[in-house]
């Protein structure tokens, strides 16, 4: 346990002094004019038994009758309790394998909890994946009705809402087209529209934002705004801190199946960032870090700012991207350098750049001493098309970025927003003139 990790590793306490405990939900809901508690989870536990080798035939069972007792035990969720208020937009964050999706599946009645109980108010609709149960052989009509019933509508109600679903998806001309003839974009639109129109009291959403192109993601964000403004109860599982900070009223950080923090989304995002990129919080992570360059330096924070120096998560098209980072050296580093690689969602490199670190104590090419901190600020022009982008951050040494001390793949992600998509990866300043008729000849 590294000294920096203490804050995250301490089990959450719900004492009166903490103030961030789940009790806050009721008060918050009331202050928003909502009607009390929508979800009440108490002491949820879930353990998976992962067999070393799956036993799927009688023979295997007969040959090794006790094999079911073999295998690894994975405690995916360990004693999590929380409340979500009516009309609250609640985020569950954590990295892959932290147990956040398992937790959502327990709430959605897909998995059964080993211990603990959940109480919910109203109709619950899970959105673990877009378009679950869609049958490609059928036209949109049948699929939307079946999907609606799966989300808990009565058949009559589902049929009544069919037009609204098709309208919202802007697929009026294609309502009788079989889904197998839909483009993937149309399919996503239909599925998303069906989800919105199902109009459940409680929506459990699992990173559906991970699919779709930039314009779809924009639409998702619009819908999230709408959900929040209409005071829907939403539980959103994600590892996208931008979304959490922008939409969530409260959020919960899960790590190794335990709740690490619950409360203010910005605080959750900050802890998430520290947990994943900052402090070396456990042995496994330490090993991982040593693999990439020995961990002689680490990024303590990476963020974007606007022109006034405020932290931002989004950048408007054509506005410069301002990157800030702080680095702390754990050992002496000879001729250190810092670099950034900007990639888009398709992992295409947009821009890569870097610089030697200007060490105060000596001339360039000197030694960055252990414990010394470096702050980095970089500004790049922004011809990028609207969409999501990732920033990979690197510290190198001996005057070369190839000699990696620390590398954080996709340490930061952000959205470039705007309304002039070009269809390409960049949208460039363009002036175009056309003339016709007699003038054209002269």
């Amino acid at each position: 346990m590294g000294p920096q990790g203490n804050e995250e590793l301490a089990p959450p306490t719900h004492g009166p002094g903490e103030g961030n405990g789940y009790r806050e939900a009721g008060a918050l809901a009331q202050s928003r004019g909502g009607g009390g508690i929508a979800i009440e989870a108490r002491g949820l536990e879930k353990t998976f038994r992962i067999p070393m080798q799956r036993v799927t035939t009688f023979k295997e069972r007969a040959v090794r009758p006790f094999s079911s007792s073999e295998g690894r035990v994975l405690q995916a969720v360990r004693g999590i309790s929380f409340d979500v208020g009516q009309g609250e937009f609640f985020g569950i964050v954590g990295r892959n394998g932290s147990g956040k999706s398992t937790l959502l599946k327990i709430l959605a009645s897909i998995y059964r909890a080993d211990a603990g109980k959940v109480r919910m108010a109203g109709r619950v609709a899970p959105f673990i994946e877009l378009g679950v149960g869609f049958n490609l052989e059928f036209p949109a009509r049948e699929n939307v009705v079946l999907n609606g019933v799966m989300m808990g509508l009565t058949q009559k109600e589902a049929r009544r809402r069919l037009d609204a679903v098709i309208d919202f998806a802007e697929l009026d001309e294609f309502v009788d087209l079989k889904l197998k003839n839909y483009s993937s974009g149309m399919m996503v639109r239909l599925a998303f529209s069906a989800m919105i129109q199902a109009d459940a009291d409680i929506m459990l959403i699992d990173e559906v934002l991970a699919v779709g192109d930039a314009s779809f993601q924009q639409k998702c964000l619009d819908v999230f705004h709408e959900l929040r403004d209409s005071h829907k109860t939403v539980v959103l599982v994600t590892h996208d801190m931008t979304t959490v900070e922008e939409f969530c009223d409260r959020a919960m950080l899960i790590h190794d199946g335990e709740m690490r923090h619950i409360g203010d989304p910005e605080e959750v995002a900050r802890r998430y960032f520290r947990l994943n990129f900052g402090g070396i919080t456990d042995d496994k992570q330490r090993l991982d870090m040593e693999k990439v360059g020995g961990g002689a330096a680490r990024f303590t924070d990476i963020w974007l700012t606007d022109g006034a120096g405020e932290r931002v998560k989004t950048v408007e098209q054509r506005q410069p991207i301002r990157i800030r980072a702080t680095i702390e050296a754990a050992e002496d580093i000879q001729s250190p350098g810092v670099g950034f690689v900007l990639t888009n969602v398709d992992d295409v490199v947009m821009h890569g750049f870097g610089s030697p670190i200007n060490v105060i104590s000596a001339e360039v090419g000197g030694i960055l001493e252990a414990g010394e901190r470096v702050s980095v600020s970089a500004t790049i022009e922004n011809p990028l098309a609207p969409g999501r982008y990732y920033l990979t951050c690197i510290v190198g040494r001996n005057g070369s970025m190839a000699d990696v001390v620390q590398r954080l793949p996709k340490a930061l992600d952000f959205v470039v927003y705007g309304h002039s998509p070009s269809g390409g990866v960049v949208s460039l300043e363009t002036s175009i003139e056309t003339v016709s008729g007699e003038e054209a000849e002269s």
Partner: protein
Amino acid sequence: MSAASETAPSATGAQPGVTDAQSPPLREISGPSAIGSDRQRFLDLLYLVAINDFRKTYFGTALGYLWSLVRPLVLFAVLLFVFTQIVRIGAGVSNYSVLLLFNIVIFGFFQESTSAAVYSIVAQEGVVRKTHFPRLVIPLATVLTGLINLGLNLIVVLIYILAFGVDPVWTWLLFPVLIGTLTVFTAALSSLLSALYVRFRDVAIIWSVAALVLFYATPVFYPFEAAPENFRKILMINPLTPFFVTARAWIIDPSAPTAAQAAGGYIYLLPALLIFLGTCALSVWVFRREMPTLAEEL
């Protein structure tokens, strides 16, 4: 987490300081289950899935639904030829061709429903793992699809029966009882097989063999009394046998022996009844046991 707790909404008043009458009450979530807490949703889903299944099978084929008739009719033609021209089992049986067609259509329902059900849950993996879907809907929908098919096929059978000159009798009114009983047995077996198949992939092979054996161990293409005396008691252990014997007496030939007469006393029907009830009980037990963890097993 009992079934009762699903339907009993707990009072909102249990939340201290929360007194908004408009908000829906908090209810305990029971987790995944076979039926789910909403009966209407269960029935709606069952209906929609079965109808879609039925449409999918014949959607886009030139002859559409007529294909579902081809199988039983071809089998009927072949068996009719074999057993009237070559083996002559049917020679002394009154209305043999009517009996044969009727039996083939009914047995076809049983066999096709159960065989399709075996793979049903595994094939619907997506809805099981990604949404809160009442699990029992899946095997039952295949049975319902089979029932829709059966209903349409029976129209053809009825025309054939009347054209052949079989007189309607009052026992025809009991036909729903017969089909109801067979449907319960088919549904129980279907659910059992579909749940077991998730864990044991052998089930598919075992069932394809067992269904074949059952076809011969059930008086489908022969009348019960054609079996040698000492085999009849064994045949009567098969729960399908009393069903087909009774159906013949009620629908086709009022002079044919009833199940009790054929077995030589009600006491000999007991093993079949026990197997019938045992299958239903086992099905319920296995299904209830397996369903909550289904999403993890798949």
